[in-house]
C-alpha cells in the first residue's frame, strides 16, 4: 500500500475563469517542498523524489469522475532553491530536477512529486561534521472545474469537514432554539395555571 504523501502548508488564491471549457477556476499555490529526506554522506550522490500533498483540493470533487477531473485539470508548476547552506567549505551540488503534479484520486487533493539531488565532498583531514541544507519552494497555477459559484476566500480552502461543519446546526442555533422552547413551555405552563386557578 502506498504511503500517504506528506501534507504541507500551502498559500492558495482562487479566482474565476471563463474557460477554456469546462474550467472555471484558476488557482495559484505556493508552498515549501519538504527537505531532502535522504542523508547525504561525504562524496555520495543522492537523488530523491519527494512526494507531498498541498492543501489545495478541488472543490466539489467526485471520486467517481476521477478520469474526467484528471483530463480537465491543468497544472503549470515549477520549483526553485530558496535557501542553501553548508556548514563548512565544501564542494557541492544542490539540484531541483523535475516537478510533476499528481491529482489524488480519493479526494481531489493536488500533490506533487519533486525530483531533488545533492552531493558534497569535504577534502578536510578532520572532516565528518559537514552538513548541507537546501530549501525549495514550489509555485503552481491550477486551472480546473469547481461547481459552486462562490469560492473559498483567498488563502483558505474548503474541505469536506469544513463543508460539513458549515452546513450543520451550530451551537448558537441550538441555544436559540432551546431558549425559544423554554419560553414557549413556560408560557404554556402559566396559561394552564391561570385556567386551573379560574376554575
Amino acid at each position, binding site marked *: 500500500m502506498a504511503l500517504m504523501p506528506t501534507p504541507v502548508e500551502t498559500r492558495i488564491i482562487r479566482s474565476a475563469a471563463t474557460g477554456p471549457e469546462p474550467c472555471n477556476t484558476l488557482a495559484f499555490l505556493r508552498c515549501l517542498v519538504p527537505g531532502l529526506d535522504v542523508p547525504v554522506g561525504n562524496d555520495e550522490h543522492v537523488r530523491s523524489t519527494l512526494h507531498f500533498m498541498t492543501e489545495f483540493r478541488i472543490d466539489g470533487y467526485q471520486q467517481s469522475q476521477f478520469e474526467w477531473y484528471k483530463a480537465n485539470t*491543468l497544472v503549470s508548476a*515549477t520549483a*526553485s532553491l530558496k535557501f542553501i547552506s553548508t556548514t563548512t567549505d565544501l*564542494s557541492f551540488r*544542490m*539540484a531541483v530536477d*523535475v516537478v*510533476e503534479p499528481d491529482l489524488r484520486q480519493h479526494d481531489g487533493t493536488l500533490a506533487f512529486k519533486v525530483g531533488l539531488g545533492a552531493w558534497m565532498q569535504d577534502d578536510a583531514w578532520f572532516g565528518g561534521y559537514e552538513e548541507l541544507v537546501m530549501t525549495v519552494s514550489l509555485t503552481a*497555477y491550477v486551472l480546473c472545474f469547481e461547481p459552486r459559484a462562490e469560492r473559498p476566500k483567498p488563502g483558505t480552502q474548503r474541505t469536506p469537514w469544513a463543508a460539513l461543519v458549515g452546513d450543520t446546526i451550530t451551537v448558537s442555533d441550538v441555544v436559540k432554539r432551546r431558549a425559544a422552547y423554554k419560553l414557549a413551555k413556560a408560557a404554556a405552563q402559566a396559561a394552564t395555571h391561570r385556567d386551573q386557578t379560574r376554575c
Partner: protein
Amino acid sequence: MPIVLSALDPKQVASATQFEVLLGDPDARRLLIMSGIAVPEFWTNHDEETSQQEIVVRLGTHVAHLEPGAVTNLGLASIENDETNFAFRVDSGQLEHDTASGELVLRVQAAILGEETWLHRFSYQIVAHVRRARAQISGVIGVPADIRDMTHLSEGMLDAAFEITANRVERGGVPGGFAFDKLIPVATGSPTAVRRGNDGMQFVEYAIDGCPFAVPMVVEVKPVGPGWPGSIGCGQVAGARPVTLTGLAPDASGVDFSVSRFQPVR
C-alpha cells in the same frame, strides 16, 4: 553566443508546462501561463572573474500579439561548485515575441563565479496576456454535380460529407526497410459554404482554424459518409503542400482540392 534551449525538448527544459486561461475578455485576450526548469549546463572554472552568459529559451508557443507587462519569475534550480568562493545569478528574465515566427522567447542573463562551477538548471514561471493569431488554412473542394449535388445539402449533411484535417508528417519505417510518412492530425476543419461554378462544378469552401505555427502540415480531404458513389477520389490541386504558418503569415488560402471519378481500368 547565447545558449539556446527549446521547451519542446525535455532534455533542454524539464517539466515544461503551459496553458491558457480565458478571463471573460471579449477581445480574445488570454492569460498564458508557462513553467519549466531550463537546463543550460552553464559552466566556468574561474573564481576571480565572473562569467556571464545569455540564455534563450524558445517556449514553443506562438501568438499573434504579446501585451507589455508580462511577469517572469526565475530561480536557481541546480548549482554546483568545487570548494571555492562562488556566485550564481540569474536575472528576472525578459519575455519577448519573435515577430518572424510568432514564437514566445524567454531571454535570461546569467552569471557564475568559481572553480568547476555549474549553473545546471534554473526554473521559470511566466504569466502574460496574449492574443492568438487566426491561424487558418482555407480553400475550396471542387465537386462535379454529376458525382453529387452539394447545393441542396443541409449544413449538418455538408459537414458530415467531408473529413478535413491538417496533419503533421512523421517519417516512419525501420532501418533497411521501406520508409513511409505517417500523418498525424493537428487540427480539423469543416465546410463553410457551397457555391455553384461553371460547367456543372460546385465549390465547397472549407477552413481549418487553430492550426499550429512553425509546423509543416499536409492537408487531407476525404469524402466520407453516405451519398457518395463508389470509385471516387479527392486530391489536392492547388496551394502549398506542406503548408507552414508563421507569425508573419498566420493564414494560408488557396489550398484547393478536387473530387473526381477514378478512370476505369482498360
